[in-house]
């Protein structure tokens, strides 16, 4: 096993202003516990209550989407793995990123949806959100991440970024990045 260099990990986290990061199987209670830690960090960071609620909301939607997806696929709790990072960028904005293993065709569909949302302004996003809210629950479940993704886009100050990496086992890794 390659020895862990905690010091260089720390240096890299500090350099990239990473407040919180997580990698591994993510359970319902873990989402809540990490969410708690995130809220405490945001309070200690003197984030405005509205900004703190937006960051928390984006974190919740991203991680719950990952859990829902794994459940839909019938994957075990162990397979419901997520990579989650909350950081600040140079401009001082909070950035929430989350990644998970996904079937390549689902990943392609997500890229298309993120791209479609990117061209919408706030008013158009709101209209799309209300339209999605009125759709039957089943329609939302089968498409997955419908309302959540629009909600994240509405809370973001810049278009969402998504990328997909093909893995050797035929699956893919999807990364989503939201800047609040």
């Amino acid at each position, binding site marked *: 096993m390659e020895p862990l260099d905690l010091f260089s990990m720390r240096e890299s986290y500090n350099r990239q202003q990473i407040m919180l990061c997580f990698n591994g199987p993510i359970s319902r209670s873990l989402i809540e516990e990490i969410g708690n830690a995130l809220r405490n960090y945001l309070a200690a960071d003197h984030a405005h*209550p*509205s900004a703190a609620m937006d960051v928390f909301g984006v974190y919740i939607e991203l991680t719950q989407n990952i859990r829902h997806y794994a459940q839909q696929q019938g994957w075990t709790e162990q397979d419901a793995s997520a990579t989650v990072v909350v950081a600040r960028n140079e401009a001082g904005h909070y950035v929430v990123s989350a990644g998970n293993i996904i079937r390549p065709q689902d990943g392609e569909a997500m890229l298309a949806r993120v791209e479609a949302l990117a061209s919408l302004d706030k008013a158009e996003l709101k209209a799309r959100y209300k339209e999605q809210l009125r759709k039957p629950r089943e329609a939302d479940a089968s498409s997955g991440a419908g309302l959540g993704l629009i909600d994240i886009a509405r809370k973001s100050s810049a278009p969402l970024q998504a990328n997909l990496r093909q893995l050797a086992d035929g699956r893919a890794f999807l990364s989503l990045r939201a800047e609040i």
Partner: protein
Amino acid sequence: MNDFSIPGTQSTPAIQGDWAQGILSMQGDSYPENSYELFHQVFEWVERFLKQAGRPLTLELKLLYLNTSSIKAMMDIFDLLEEAHHQHKPVAVNWRYDPRNERVAELAEEFKEDCSFPFAILSHD
């Protein structure tokens, strides 16, 4: 038993239904993974009250953050109220929020847009 009380948790609001007073109250955050489990009993209580009680119903809300599945569940409850309002049944919502967090008022405002019954958004200190 027509009254009910569900204690709040970190991710679910405290909810009380008072049949005699015609008041349904909710306080706190709501971001459970499965909102349906929590809200269907609230939905059923409201539905039953509107059918049977023959009295005004008021929702007293101090809700804070709602995830999208909780928002969908709340919309279903407001739709019940809207339908009752169209049948000339008296229904109302009072949503109280902390003025330091305008996101809560914005959230309440978006619900209010789709409701024609009395819907008050009140700041408290």
